[in-house]
């Protein structure tokens, strides 16, 4: 038999394509439930991690409901809307215009302290990057942040999911007075007293800029909602200001 005959070539190609297609689609369908489960558990793990609870993926399932007290879906005008926050896919939402986007918000209660967790999603160098940032009750100070990516360069942009990049976010603030400033990732390193900047990653500038843009873009969507919450927390903030004035006074006196 001459394997190089045209008819043989076509037959070989056709059979190969059918076998490969069957093999791959079977694998994809059979493995999908396992893969989806991993993604869901990882999301829970990341949400918990943004409020300082470190746990492995399997454990995340069990304690998720203990710490995450409510899940809201809001819109850009700050109104609550129907929906399940956990199932909102930001990748889909961000293709809509700002007015019709669904914005998920998670509220945690860890040892009596309430924190607001905002899911993030943006563009890195090679693909999407995402994460969660948690704000203290004053809706200004950052408690923690976690980031992840699908395909940033290992050792460079991919470092955004390391503690060395994430940890400096805690304690920063997203407002300067009443003005929204977001948090910038600064190439060459942020000044030590910069409340709105963290160090960038050498060799990962485009990914770092992606993180800045993502924070600015996503947090901005929640500003109306924050302002509806603010009156409730105003008393606290006035009180906090008094404390800080007192400490300034003390330092002047001393």
């Amino acid at each position, binding site marked *: 038999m001459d*394997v*190089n*005959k045209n008819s*043989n*070539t076509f037959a*070989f*190609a056709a059979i*190969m*394509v059918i076998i*490969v297609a069957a*093999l*791959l689609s079977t*694998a*994809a369908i059979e*493995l999908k439930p*396992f*893969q989806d489960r*991993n993604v869901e558990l*990882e999301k829970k793990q990341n949400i918990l991690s943004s409020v300082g609870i470190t746990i492995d*993926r399997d454990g995340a399932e069990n304690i998720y409901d203990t710490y995450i007290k409510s899940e809201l879906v809001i819109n850009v005008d700050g109104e609550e809307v129907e929906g399940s926050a956990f199932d909102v896919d930001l990748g889909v939402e961000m293709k809509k215009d700002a007015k019709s986007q669904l914005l998920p918000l998670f509220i945690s209660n860890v040892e009596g302290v309430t924190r607001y967790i905002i899911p993030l999603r943006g563009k890195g160098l*090679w693909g999407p990057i995402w994460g969660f940032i948690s704000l203290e009750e004053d809706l200004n100070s950052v408690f923690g942040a976690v980031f992840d*990516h*699908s*395909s*940033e*360069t*290992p*050792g*460079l942009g*991919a470092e955004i999911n390391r503690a060395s990049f994430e940890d400096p976010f805690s304690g920063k603030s997203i407002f300067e007075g009443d003005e929204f400033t977001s948090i910038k990732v600064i190439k060459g390193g942020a000044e030590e007293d910069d409340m709105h900047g963290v160090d960038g990653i*050498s*060799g990962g500038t485009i990914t770092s800029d992606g993180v800045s843009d993502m924070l600015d873009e996503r947090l901005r969507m929640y500003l109306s909602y924050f302002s509806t919450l603010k009156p409730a927390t105003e008393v606290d903030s006035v009180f906090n200001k008094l404390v800080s004035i007192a400490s300034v006074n003390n330092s002047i006196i001393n």
Partner: protein
Amino acid sequence: MSKSNLLSKRTKQLLSDPLDDNNPITVQVLGICSALAITVQLKPAIVMALSVLVVLSVANVIISLMRKIIPSRIRIIVQLVVVATLVILVDQVLRAFVYDVSKELSVFVGLIITNCIIMGRLEAFGMANGPWDSFMDGLGNSFGYAWILIAVAFFRELLGSGTLFGYPVLESLGIYELGYENNGMMILPPMALITVGVIIWIQRVKNIKLVESK
């Protein structure tokens, strides 16, 4: 092939040649792209080396088994399909059962398909030799690829970030107190090329027969 031949002189040579005399990276200068891209740190380099080992040896065997019925006009396409299928299967299985490893691999999975070493071995060896020899050839070349990758990653991570496997080696040895600073150049791709170049240089000093006559 009889059992006594399983590790004959020839098969031993299939394993050992790619380590030095016929190294895929330093002598054939194949697979340079991945050697530059993923040698910033040791761990991904090792994961990449292992993945290439699995894909190359299995693909070489599959191509070798089919070599008599592959029409020569579409043989490259067939090789590519075999490699791509294997890579996607491995990726899917990893994602379902060892999610952490699959995250570590992320972009490399795609890089494996385009690794010239794999296509090169399938075309040059798998298409012309029996399955056992092809398997050995696959292993040998993967080892040849792996040791260069790991050597380059070792120096880049150590000198560029001061760590090995993420552990701060230089700091615990007190090298910084002697005035050393992490070399930022080492984590950028050009220094990978220079590191590979230095390895080639040293190799040719020790192995004179690799040096082309003028």
